[in-house]
């Protein structure tokens, strides 16, 4: 950068010069007579020595001033380091804040999208509640509120309930049991028709029709069977499943 000599170098050079001059003078003082320097030369040398000594003193004064400045610089350097630490700390916090904000914005965006998706196809709350009723009415989702250990009710249809249903009554009283379920009117009613018939023979009377309903042949006609168990629906229809485990979380997409 700069070709200036540092104060340290200057001082060292002056010391070297003083050493050389003093060596010259001492050698001259012990030299034999014919090698001694002349008077003026000797005086010149001595003057040079004194001048060098003065120069040394001046440079030392300069060095002490520079030491003062150096102290000030140390204080400044400590201040700058403090500022650097603060800047680093602030930078870290800003980065953290940026990350948190970007996450928050992304999530808010997702929410807005889901809101617009929901608004495009609205569903009436009545329908939702109706379906919820139907799903939970069979007690398969959650036990009834008054259920205790030892309660015979089960989340699936028990054998007693099955026997009390259509299939069960068909087995025991084929014509009679069926008549109670009948929905269409028939031309002939076969009451107490064949009470002693073997149950196996009645299997041909069951037939699937194209509409998807199961029909049973009674005499000349066939009657559609209701495959649903209406009895179960009326049970506990007032009680909705309020278990928190069965409700879907609002965050699920």
């Amino acid at each position, binding site marked *: *950068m*700069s070709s*200036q*000599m*540092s*104060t*340290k170098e200057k*001082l*060292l050079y002056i*010391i070297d010069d*003083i*050493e050389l001059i*003093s060596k010259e*003078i*001492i050698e001259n*003082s*012990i030299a034999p007579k014919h090698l001694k320097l002349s008077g003026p030369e000797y005086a010149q040398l001595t003057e040079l*020595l*004194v001048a060098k*000594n003065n120069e*040394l*003193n001046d440079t*030392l*004064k*300069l*060095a*002490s*001033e*520079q*030491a*003062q*400045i*150096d*102290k*000030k*610089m140390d204080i*400044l*350097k400590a*201040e*700058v380091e403090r*500022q*650097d630490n*603060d*800047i680093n700390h*602030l930078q870290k916090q*800003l980065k953290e804040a940026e990350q948190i904000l970007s996450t928050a914005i992304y999530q808010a965006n997702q929410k807005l999208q889901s809101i617009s998706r929901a608004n495009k196809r609205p569903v009436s709350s009545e329908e939702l509640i109706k379906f919820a009723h139907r799903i939970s009415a069979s007690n398969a989702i959650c036990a009834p509120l008054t259920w205790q250990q030892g309660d015979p009710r089960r989340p699936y249809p028990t054998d007693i309930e099955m026997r009390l249903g259509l299939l069960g009554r068909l087995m025991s009283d084929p014509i009679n049991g069926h008549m109670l379920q009948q929905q269409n009117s028939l031309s002939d009613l076969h009451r107490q028709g064949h009470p002693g018939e073997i149950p196996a023979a009645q299997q041909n009377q069951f037939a699937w029709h194209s509409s998807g309903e199961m029909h049973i042949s009674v005499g000349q006609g066939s009657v559609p069977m209701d495959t649903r168990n209406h009895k179960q629906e009326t049970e506990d229809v007032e009680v909705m499943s309020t278990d928190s485990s069965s409700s879907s979380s609002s965050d699920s997409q």
Partner: protein
Amino acid sequence: MESDEQNQDLERKVTVENLNIEILPIIYEIIRSVEKDHHDNTAKTRESQDCSQKVLELQKRLDQARAEIRMLPGIDYSKEQQLHHLEALKTQLKLKQELLRKYRYMYTFEIPK
């Protein structure tokens, strides 16, 4: 600056104040002892012994001065360079303080009413 006071602490910080740089007196003593003309031999031998001792001391003094100068603080640059550095450091400090002030009190979140 040329005082002979020596600091006895283990970690002696060398300042210009406690620098031992008295070279000229020794040189003077050496020359004087050489110039002295003694009549008896014993004084002469003693004198020559003293003289060689003083020469050694001169050398030692010079080396000590050199070592202490190397330890002086703040003289690694010339005065102009040092002042230049000082100014640069001040500017740096000012800039950094400005930067911090700007960001610390910046408020960019306006909540619309």
